[in-house]
């Protein structure tokens, strides 16, 4: 269990891990965008709605393609070499669990007082 996240030793390899995790989140978002768009398209009956949603769907395919191409190029994602992919997955999830186990935001996180929120 790591308690000191400011320790330089523990920050080793972090940028790669952060970028990998973030790009994976981005990819998953794009994927669920495609799925939801496809479902919406099958429910569309108005021609204008159909036109807009079909364009949205193909845009979503495009951005999804861009993301996974970048991930492959940067070696965050190995769709062909599954052994390598699983190894990366295991490492990433282990580190994520370690980070999640830390008390990153100790104390009261309500910072309402620092926000300009007039009473209604």
């Amino acid at each position, binding site marked *: 269990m790591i308690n000191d996240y400011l320790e330089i030793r523990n920050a080793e390899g972090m940028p790669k891990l*952060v*970028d990998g995790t973030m*790009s994976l989140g981005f990819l998953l978002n794009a994927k669920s965008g495609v799925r*939801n768009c496809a*479902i*919406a398209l099958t429910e*569309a009956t108005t021609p204008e709605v159909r036109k*807009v949603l079909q364009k*949205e769907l193909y845009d979503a395919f495009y*951005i999804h393609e861009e993301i996974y191409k970048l991930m492959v190029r940067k070696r965050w994602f190995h769709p062909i070499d599954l052994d390598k992919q699983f190894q990366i997955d295991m490492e990433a999830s282990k580190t994520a669990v370690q980070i999640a186990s830390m008390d990153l935001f100790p104390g009261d996180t309500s910072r309402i007082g620092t926000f300009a929120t007039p009473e209604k």
Partner: protein
Amino acid sequence: MREQYLAPNETMQIHELLNLKTICMTTSKMMEGVVFDQDLKALLEKDVQQSIKSIENLQRLLNKAPKLR
């Protein structure tokens, strides 16, 4: 009559999609401040710009929502 309003089912789908797009755009924008790789940041920004256009389109469609109870 058919041109004036959308069908109820497609209206709900557009509403779902609008919410999803809004959340995805917000997440992408937040990620931009976290990532190290500048290529990834550029791609995130591209997605944000594309999402803004999508959201405008969906909002325009949602203006034609039927009057439901």
